[in-house]
């Protein structure tokens, strides 16, 4: 059973398009995240939600809009895609007070290529 799942795994699209990535976790965690990993493997947090509430919003263009319909789901919608958005996007979840605390469980990633 996959703990954190993301769809799609691969996404190839044209500049200017709008796309969404979905994430679901079945670990019962309270907190979910979106990370962006660039071609140099740098891993940067974009957003974090705790029980459907936005708690971390990094300096991300407002073309990126996360949505959490419930604490098990966190989706990412991207408007007007640009070449620089090409990256791997990872969803993750964690449980405050977990053992160890705040360990991140990552999804398999969505490889986005903007042409």
């Amino acid at each position, binding site marked *: 059973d996959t703990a954190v799942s993301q769809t799609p795994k691969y996404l190839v699209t044209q500049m200017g398009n709008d796309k969404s990535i979905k994430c679901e976790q079945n670990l019962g965690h309270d907190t979910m995240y979106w*990370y962006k990993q660039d071609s140099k*493997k*740098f*891993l*940067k*947090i974009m957003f*974090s939600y705790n029980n459907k509430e936005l*708690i*971390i919003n*990094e300096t991300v263009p407002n073309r990126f809009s996360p949505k959490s319909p419930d604490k098990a789901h966190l989706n990412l919608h991207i408007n007007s895609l640009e070449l620089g958005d090409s990256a791997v996007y*990872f969803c993750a979840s964690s449980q405050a007070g977990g053992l*160890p*605390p*705040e*360990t*991140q*469980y*990552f*999804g*398999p*990633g969505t490889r986005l290529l903007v042409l």
Partner: protein
Amino acid sequence: GQQVMQIPQYQHVQEGEDFTTYCNSSTTLSNIQWYKQRPGGHPVFLIQLVKSGEVKKQKRLTFQFGEAKKNSSLHITATQTTDVGTYFCAGYPGGGNKLTFGTGTQLKVEL
């Protein structure tokens, strides 16, 4: 800018050689976590260190947390091809609520 740096960025070793990656933070970390990401995969949690000067071992891997809680290291003894991947440290700089990942060290092991 990046608050948690790792060196080296890349490392090629021959199988059987040892490997070390160093993690340095500009501010004190409440704890340090280490993750491994295989090529094409996702980061997977390895271990967490909490106490100043703490040392933990997992088989051939030795993790250390500095006395000042601003640096950490991961040492692999006698590398194997299964050790290939990118190793990340991660922590909460300045006691904030954002887990900040280090810049990562990509390890390649050649036969």
